C-alpha cells in the first residue's frame, strides 16, 4: 500500500510541466494583515484565501457555500504541494549524485 509520500511523488511525476520555481507572491503583507490570514497560510496561494475567507464570513461558514472559491484555493494548494514534493525529489537526486 502506497504511503502518503509515495502517492504525492507519483502525482508530482504525472505533471512534467510543473515548474520548480515558486509562483509570484500576489498578496501583499498589508493585505494579509488586513484580512487576518493565519500565519501558516501566508503562502503563494494566500491571494485566493482572501476571497474565500470573505465569502465564509459573509455566509457564516454555512456548508455548501463558497464552493468556487474553495475549489480555486484547494487546487492552488495542491499544485503548490506537488511542486514542493517535486523540488524535494530533485534535491534528493542531486544529493545522491
Amino acid at each position, binding site marked *: *500500500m*502506497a*504511503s*502518503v*509520500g509515495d*502517492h*504525492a511523488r507519483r*502525482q508530482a511525476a504525472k505533471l512534467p510541466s510543473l515548474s520548480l520555481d515558486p509562483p509570484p507572491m500576489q498578496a501583499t503583507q498589508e493585505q494579509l494583515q488586513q*484580512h*487576518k*490570514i*493565519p*500565519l*501558516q*497560510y*501566508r503562502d503563494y496561494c494566500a491571494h485566493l*484565501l482572501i476571497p*474565500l*475567507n470573505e465569502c*465564509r*464570513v459573509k455566509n*457564516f*461558514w*454555512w*456548508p455548501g457555500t463558497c464552493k468556487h472559491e*474553495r475549489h480555486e*484555493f*484547494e487546487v492552488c*494548494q*495542491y499544485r*503548490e*504541494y506537488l511542486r514542493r514534493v517535486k523540488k524535494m525529489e530533485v534535491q534528493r537526486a542531486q544529493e545522491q549524485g
Partner: protein
Amino acid sequence: MYLCLFLFPFFGFLVSGSFGRLFGKQGAAFIATFCVCCSCLCSFVAFYEVGLTSCPVTLSLFPWICVDVVESFWSISVDSLTAVMLVVITTISSLVHVYSISYIKDDPFLARFISYLSLFTFLMLSLVLADNYLQLFFGWEGVGLASFLLISFWSSRLQACKAATKAIIINRVGDVGLALALFCFILIFGSVEYSTIFSCSSKVAFCTFLFCQFKVDILSCIGVLLLIGASGKSAQIGLHTWLPDAIEGPTPVSALIHAATMVTAGVFVLARSSPILEFSPVVLFFVSLVGAFTAFFAATTGLVQNDLKRVIAYSTCSQLGYMVFASGLSQYALGVFHLSNHAFFKALLFLGAGCIIHAIKDEQDLRRIGGLAYLLPFTYSFILVGSLALVGFPFLTGFYSKDAILEFSLSNFSVTGGLCHWFGVISALFTSFYSFRLLVLGFLGYPNGFKSFYKNCHEAPLFIAVSLIPLGLGSLFIGFFCRELFLGAGTPFWANSIFIYPVRESIIEAECAPVILKQIPLFFTVMGAAVSFSFIYHNPIITYRFLFFNQMFRVFYTFLNQRWLFDRVYNESFAKAFLFFGHAISFRIVDKGALEILGPFGIVFIFPGLSKQLISLQSGRVYHNVLFIVYGLGFLLCSPLFYSSNGCFFLISVGCWIVFRVF
C-alpha cells in the same frame, strides 16, 4: 451580557442551595435550570459575536491577587476557543439540568443536587473564561471539588464515596503538575496572564535552566507539567482510574462531568497553551504518545466491561485519547472540534443509559438486560444515533472529527504520526466492537432480565425526552455544520486563540492522502461491527464456549476485564502504603498521639498531675519555706545581671548553688 453569562449559574447555585426549602425542591430546581438556560442563551450570542463576527471580548472585573510583580485580575476573556467551550458547557449543562428535574424528582435533596450542578457550571465557566492561569487554576480546582460533591451525592452508598475520594485524590496528582507550571510562569515570565506568557514564549524557546546540575529546557519543563495536569483532568493513561469509577454517581453527573465538560478541561488547557507547546517538540511527542496509548488502552478495556455505564466511561477515556493525540500532532482545532462533537454524542449516550437504568429498576449489568429495543424504542433510537456517531459512521458527527484526526496523523510524516495513526485505527475497530456489543446486549439480544423488569418497563418521561432530542440532533448534524468553521483550510475562525507553528500545518497533506488510506478507519469500523454482530448476536454460545475453554483467551479476557490491572497495581504499590501511613502514623501517632497529648486530652490529664506535685511542695516544713524565700530573694537581687552578657549563666549558677546547698 458576558457578566450575566458568567454569573447566572452562580445565582442559580445560591438560590437553590440557600433557599431550596423556601422555594421547594421543584421550585429551586426550576429556578436553577432557568438560570443555566439563560446562560446558555448568552453563550450562543457570545459565539455569534466573538466567533462568527471575530470580535473578541475582555472584561477586567476586579484585582484579585497583586503580590510584587505578579498582578492577577479577575477577568472575563472570550475568544473563539472560549466561545466554543461556552456553547458546549452551557448547552450540555442546561440539558442535564432539565433531565435531572425528572430523573431525581423523588430524591428529597433535589435542590442540593441542582445547586451542585449549577456550582459546577459556574466553576467550569470561570475556568474557560479566564484570561490568566491563576483564575484558570481556581476553576480547575473548583470543578474538582464540585465533581467530588456530585459523585458522592448519594453519600449513603459506599461505592459512591470511595469513587469520589478516588477522583479527588487522583485529580490532585494532576493538579500538582498544573500548580508547578503556574509557579514556573511566575518564576520565568513574572506573570500569569495569557497575553504576557504567550507573547514571550517565543523569546524563551530553547532557553534552559539548571536543575540538579542538568540543563532543562524551560518550555519543555512547563509543557510536561501542563501535560501532567491535563492527564489528571482528562483521564489519560496512568491517571485515568478515577473516571470509570466515577460512574457510581448519578447518571446526569456522568453525562455532565465525565463525558461532556470536566474531562475536556485538560484538552482545553492543551489547546489554550498551544503557544507554549508549539515551541517544544519533545512535549508534543509525549502528548501525542500519551493520547494514542490512552485511546488504545481504554478501547481494549471497554471491549469486555459488563457495566452499561462503565463501557461508556471507557469509551470517553478512549475518545479523550484521540483529542490529546490530535493536540500532540499540533492539530488543536481538530482536538477541540472532536471535543465539542464528543460532548453531544457522549452526553446522549449517558443520558440514554440513564433512561435504561430508570426503566428497568436500576439494573445496569449488560448481561442481565436485553431485548429492550421493542420496549424502549425511543431510547433505543437515541442510543443508536449516539453509538453510530461515536464509531464514526459516515456523515454523522463523530465521522467528521474522528476520521480527520486519523487522516492528520497519517500525513504527519513522522514515527509518532504513524504510531498514533495505527493506535487510532485499531482503537476505532475496538470502539466499533464495544459500541455494537452494547447495542446487541442491551437492545437486540435475548431478554436476560427478570420478568418484573420487563413488565414495569416504561419509556422516559417528558423532561427526559426533551433533553435527549437536542442532543440527538447535535449528534447527527453538528459535525456536518461545523466542519468548515473549525477545520476549513485557512479558516479565520480561530484567529489568535490557537497558535500552530507554520511548518506543522498539514491540512493539505491530509487532503492529498491516497483515498485507500483514508478509508482504512471506515473499513476497521465496519469490521468491528461485523465481528460484534457475528460473535455476540448470532453465535453467543460459541463465543462463550471459546471464552471458557481457551486458557490463553481467558487470561487475556481477565487481564482486560481487570482493566490492565492498573487498579490492582496502584492498590498494592501506593494505596496500601498510603493507607498504612494514614492509619498508623498520621492517625494513631500524630492525630491520636502527639496532637491529643499536646492538645485538650493532654491538658486534661497532665494538669491534675502537675497540680498534685505543686500541692506536695506545700509541706509545711520551715526549711522548705526558707529555701523558696532565699531563692526568690536571690532571683530579685540578681535580676539586673540578667541583662548582662553572662547574666543568664550567672543566674542559673546561683540558683543551682542554692538548691545544691539546701538539699
